[in-house]
């Protein structure tokens, strides 16, 4: 068992992976995992927002009364996302063009609010940073795996590069049903193996 700050980082990668284990933030996952490039874009943007919101929420955790915490967190997250969006548009137009379309999806990403509620509202800023990084990277790799499967099967490409023109890819893999099937199958496989490992440990 890894402990301390490193432990907070590592848990997001596998044991408490936001997509496969906690199953949070599925709306943006379904919407965006149509190609690997999109998956990486969304993952990076979400990690950045998660980092900012975790730090801010952790800093104000002693001032915010418990009963009005949710509206406070939402205001903080929405403000941070909008500021990041404005700065990106003004100073990094290229980055903004490739990540810009994910911004509205991040505001409604439950992972961000979920971490504010479950972690950074109770823990100091440094720990929250590690938590955000772990969760962000965990979300990113989950997106990459899902989108790789969908892009190859639904579009016949990976990272936009054509793999084979031998078959007509089934379009439904890029549409919503493909996302639900892929995520469901992956969670099923992961649960199967985790249960097996647990049974062995007993």
């Amino acid at each position: 068992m890894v402990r301390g700050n490193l432990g907070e980082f590592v848990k997001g990668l596998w044991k408490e992976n936001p997509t496969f284990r906690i199953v949070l933030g599925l709306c943006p996952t379904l919407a965006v995992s149509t190609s690997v490039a999109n998956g990486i874009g969304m993952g990076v943007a979400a990690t950045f927002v998660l980092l900012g919101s975790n730090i801010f929420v952790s800093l104000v955790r002693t001032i915010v009364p418990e009963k009005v915490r949710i509206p406070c967190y939402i205001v903080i997250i929405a403000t941070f996302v909008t500021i990041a969006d404005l700065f990106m548009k003004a100073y990094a137009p290229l980055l903004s063009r490739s990540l810009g379309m994910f911004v509205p999806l991040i505001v409604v990403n439950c992972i961000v609010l979920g971490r504010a509620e479950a972690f950074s509202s109770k823990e100091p800023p440094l720990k929250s940073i590690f938590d955000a990084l772990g969760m962000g990277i965990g979300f990113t790799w989950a997106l990459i795996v899902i989108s790789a499967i969908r892009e190859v099967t639904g579009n016949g490409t990976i990272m936009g590069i054509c793999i084979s023109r031998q078959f007509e890819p089934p379009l439904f893999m890029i549409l919503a049903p493909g996302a639900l099937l892929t995520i469901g199958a992956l969670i099923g496989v992961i649960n199967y193996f985790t249960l097996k490992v647990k049974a062995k440990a007993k």
Partner: protein
Amino acid sequence: MNQMAKFGLILGIICLIATLVLALTYEVTRPKIIEQLRQEEQAALKKIIPDADSFELKTLDGVEYFEAMKGSDLIGYCLKVTGSGYSGYMRIIVGIDPNGVIRGVSVLEHQETPGLGSKITEVRPDETEPWFLKQFKGKSAKAVAVKKNIDAITGATISSKAVTDAIRDAVDIFLKKVRK
């Protein structure tokens, strides 16, 4: 002080701070963002009608457009078109020659679904311009229609139609007015 008022006050203060920070950021970044948009627009204009050496912004009945000039000759128009896509509006620039034949189309901004509708701006690996928009080149603007002479993007018929219809309608109205 009763608790309810205290909670309300704290939430109010947080909202106030957030608003101030946002307003400040908006003011600081606004001129930069406008400048970026202008540059982006200029780059798109040059790409659409490369042989023009200047573009003059004009307004006709509230519609903004550019006159593409080569020396003192008017060689075409670039129209700013707003389309209504699958999930929000899109900003399109379409270049036509004086006869209404399309020189090029550029989508500056859109909110279409990543991976589906967003293919309206997708560039294939071995090409330099979006394959969907390339179809418009050389066609008469008032005759473009999805399924007729424009191939729709698989799974994104609404986005494809939105671009096509927006261009056709805007150019049609514009040419009638200009030739009046």
